[in-house]
């Protein structure tokens, strides 16, 4: 921890002061305001829609944060050679990756905490305006959903580190991260589809099944972290599920960052 902390702190500070962050927050704020307008058009389940919109806004803004602020934090270090000032310290390349990741995780947690606060405020104010349309509402599943969103973003950041460790430019990292995000959210549904193709009347070749299964274990299963539906309808979410998902997120993140460190420790910076 000792060699990681100073780097984590300056990474966090550099990230939190980034101008792009203001833009992202502004967008989120607009979405929260839009929540009011959208809810005004809903006839019955205002509560569900309010939670849907608010949580999706947090998730989307967080995604932008990881893609445009997070990836930049690492990529700029390599592009502009600011990494020299870090590696000239008694900091190994592995330490560098972990310290940077720690700072990024702190940034994500802080940002989602702030966005989440705004989301709760937005839900709360809609509820205040339409109190009778929140028949099945509770705060705790919304908080749990926010927690899993945060974890998902941290995992995605870990993946972006892995890509950055071997990619030659930040653009490649960005593309790879976006692709893994898209695959990560679709892979579970696609796996379910190809495993029982008869049910929907499609035909699937054995190769497709193998490819999809490989993707299922290779890419992060991001849909696990999505309990927005449960939060919107206040449905029970089992502790087994939560524990499993949190453990999965931590394992996957640790794996990505460890691999990133391994690849990175072989790199040179001419």
């Amino acid at each position, binding site marked *: 921890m000792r060699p990681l902390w100073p780097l984590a702190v300056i990474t966090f500070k550099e990230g939190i002061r980034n101008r792009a962050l203001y833009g992202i927050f502004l967008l989120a704020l607009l979405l929260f305001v839009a929540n009011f307008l959208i809810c005004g058009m809903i006839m019955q389940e205002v509560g569900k829609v309010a939670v849907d919109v608010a949580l999706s806004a947090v998730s989307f803004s967080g995604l932008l944060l990881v893609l445009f602020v997070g990836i930049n934090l690492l990529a700029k270090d390599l592009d502009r050679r600011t990494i020299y000032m870090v590696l000239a310290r008694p900091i190994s390349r592995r330490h560098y990756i972990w310290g940077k990741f720690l700072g990024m995780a702190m940034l994500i947690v802080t940002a989602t905490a702030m966005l989440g606060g705004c989301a709760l405020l937005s839900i709360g104010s809609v509820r205040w305006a339409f109190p009778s349309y929140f028949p099945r509402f509770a705060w705790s599943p919304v908080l749990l959903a926010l927690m899993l969103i945060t974890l998902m973003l941290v995992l995605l950041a870990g993946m972006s580190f892995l890509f950055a460790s071997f990619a030659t430019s930040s653009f490649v990292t960005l593309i790879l991260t976006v692709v893994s995000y898209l695959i990560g959210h679709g892979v579970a549904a696609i796996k379910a589809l190809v495993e029982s193709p008869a049910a929907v*009347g499609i035909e699937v070749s054995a190769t497709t099944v193998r490819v999809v299964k490989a993707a299922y274990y290779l890419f992060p*299963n991001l849909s696990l972290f999505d309990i927005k*539906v*449960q939060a919107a309808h206040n449905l*029970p979410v089992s502790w087994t599920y939560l524990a499993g998902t949190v453990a999965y997120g931590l394992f996957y993140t640790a794996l990505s960052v*460890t691999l990133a460190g*391994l690849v990175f420790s072989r790199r040179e910076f001419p």
Partner: protein
Amino acid sequence: MRRLLATLVLVAALAAGQVATLWWAAGARQDLPLPEDHSYVLPGPLLRVVAGEFRGLAADFCFLQGLTAYGKLLESAGPSQARDSDWQRVYRLLDAATDLDPYFFDPYYFGNAVLSRNPEMIPRINQLLEKGLEWRDWDWLLPFYLGFNHFYYLQDSGRASEYLMLGAQRPDAMPLLATLAARLAYQENRTENAIVFLRGILSRTEDERTRELYQVRLEALEKIHYLEQAVLVYRQHYGEMPGTLNVLQERGVISAIPEDPYGGTFYLDADGSVKSTSELTYAKGGTSNEIPAN
């Protein structure tokens, strides 16, 4: 070197942990309850706004969701026990897909094939097909489907004939359409007409599973046609109606009463037509009388 080995061992352990927790969490997720109204699908016009320039892609996505929803419906309950809301969800998704891209043929085709397993959905299917009729103004298949649905499920030979006439005028239409349109002008020969219809549809259906759906119906209709012919023979011979189908067998007009592929039993209705307790659908356990009679 030892450092690298240690890292690789760590990586292997983390990978194993990743897979194990994935199993755990994915298993637990299946037990999570789904909301009752998960069938909510945003209305088409709103989806058009949200989808922006990706309307086509959104349409494809909605259609695939429709496929999945139908798969879930079959998996969870089977077509006879499925709840209305499940059928509605499939319909809404297909409707949304065609709102996003009204030229997209697959949702019409798929909707017509599978939603008809629940006869209550027929008006919905027709609504969907009507939309396609307007946009795909070169396509004779959609009026053909509409014609069949009106003739067979809604007993409206007049409307059916109109649709078929419309279809017959579209490019490359099967000659059968004109013939059928003419035949439907007569109320007679209902079963036979239905068989001709189905054979026409089958000749244009390539997908194996969809063919199966139509083939079962065709098989049932052919059996009914066979029985109706036997009743006719009996009447000419004895000058009266047989009381039940068993009489046909006893008197040697037929060797055996064929089996209903839908799992029901054929019987002779009071008006002299042959019906089945399954009412030629899997829906509602074959007990309701909602399906229109001959």
